[in-house]
Structure formats: C-alpha cells, structure tokens
C-alpha cells in the first residue's frame, strides 16, 4: 500500500514546491509591470546586507571574513564615460585621419627630395 502511495506523495511534494515558487514570484510583483519589478528589486537590495550580516554572525565567521572593502566603482559612470569617449573619437576620426595622411605624405615627400 505504501509502495502505491509513495509516487503520489512525491508528485504532490514536487507540485507544492513548484506551485509555491510560482506563487512567490507572482506575489512579489516580479512578473508584473516595470514599476512593480523595480520596487521588488529595491526591497531585495534593502534586505540582503542585513540578512548577510545576520548569517555571518550566526555562523561565527565574523572574525574570519575580512570586511568587504567599500568599492567606489560605479558601472553606470564607467559605461557613460566609455560611450562619451567612443562617440567623441568617432567624431574626431575623419579630421585626425586626414591630418595623419597629410603628415605621412609630407614625410614621404621629404624622404624623396
């Protein structure tokens, strides 16, 4: 009798876990509009560092783990700086190319003289 129920129990457990995951995803607004998604992201960002601190204290790893250095790196700023540099070099490229060409031609003429 147990041998017949066990597959059903396994299936029921799997369906519960999968259904719970889908419910949590839908309920927290992860699958809603963009505003809901950004709200959920903000909530997660606010919750993660204290939770991490709690876990570290709980496991007694405080002494072992070095404190996270405050990173002054901002990907947004780097990306924007990269875009600006690319566009400015693209806009200067024709001028620079003609300059270099004329310089090169001058150099060759001087060599030939």
């Amino acid at each position, binding site marked *: 009798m147990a041998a017949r129920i066990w597959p059903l129990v396994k299936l029921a457990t799997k369906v519960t*876990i*999968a259904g719970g*995951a889908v419910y949590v995803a839908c309920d927290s607004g992860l*699958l809603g*509009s*963009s505003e809901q*998604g*950004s709200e*959920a*992201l903000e909530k997660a960002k606010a919750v993660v560092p204290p939770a991490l601190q709690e876990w570290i204290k709980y496991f007694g790893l405080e002494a072992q783990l070095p404190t996270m250095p405050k990173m002054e790196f901002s990907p947004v700023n780097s990306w924007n700086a990269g875009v600006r540099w690319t566009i400015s070099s693209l806009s200067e490229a024709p001028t620079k190319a003609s300059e270099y060409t004329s310089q090169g031609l001058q150099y060759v003429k001087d060599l030939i003289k």
Partner: protein
Amino acid sequence: MSEKELGKKWDRCLADGVTKLGTGLGLGIVFSVLFFKRRTWPITLFSGAGLGMAYANCQNDLRSHYLPHRSQKQEL
C-alpha cells in the same frame, strides 16, 4: 517626452529585463529539476518567456506617452 523621462524609462526597462530574466531562470531551474529530469529546455523556455514579458512591458511603457489614457477619454 523629456530626455530625463526617457532615460528613466530605459533604466526601468533594463532593470525589469534583468529581474524577469532572473525570475525566469530561477523558475526554469526549479521546474527542470523537479519535473523534467534536469534537462535544459525548461530553463531556456522560462528565461525566454521572462525576457519576452520584459520586452512587452518596455514596449508598453515607451508607447504610453503617446496614447490617450482613460482620464483623457473621460474628459472628452
């Protein structure tokens, strides 16, 4: 729409895309492990669905500025 507003909309689009991709990935992994014997296709399917949802949201968001809204229709 002003440049600032447009920039904010694009930021929201990007964040939304990342969120939905992650959610799709997570759900895909859960379903793949539980029901589909750890195959890859559920993961791809769910991640793709998440990206598609983000694309639709972004499209709606960017178009909403140029469409008449319910409050305007009521005024007419």
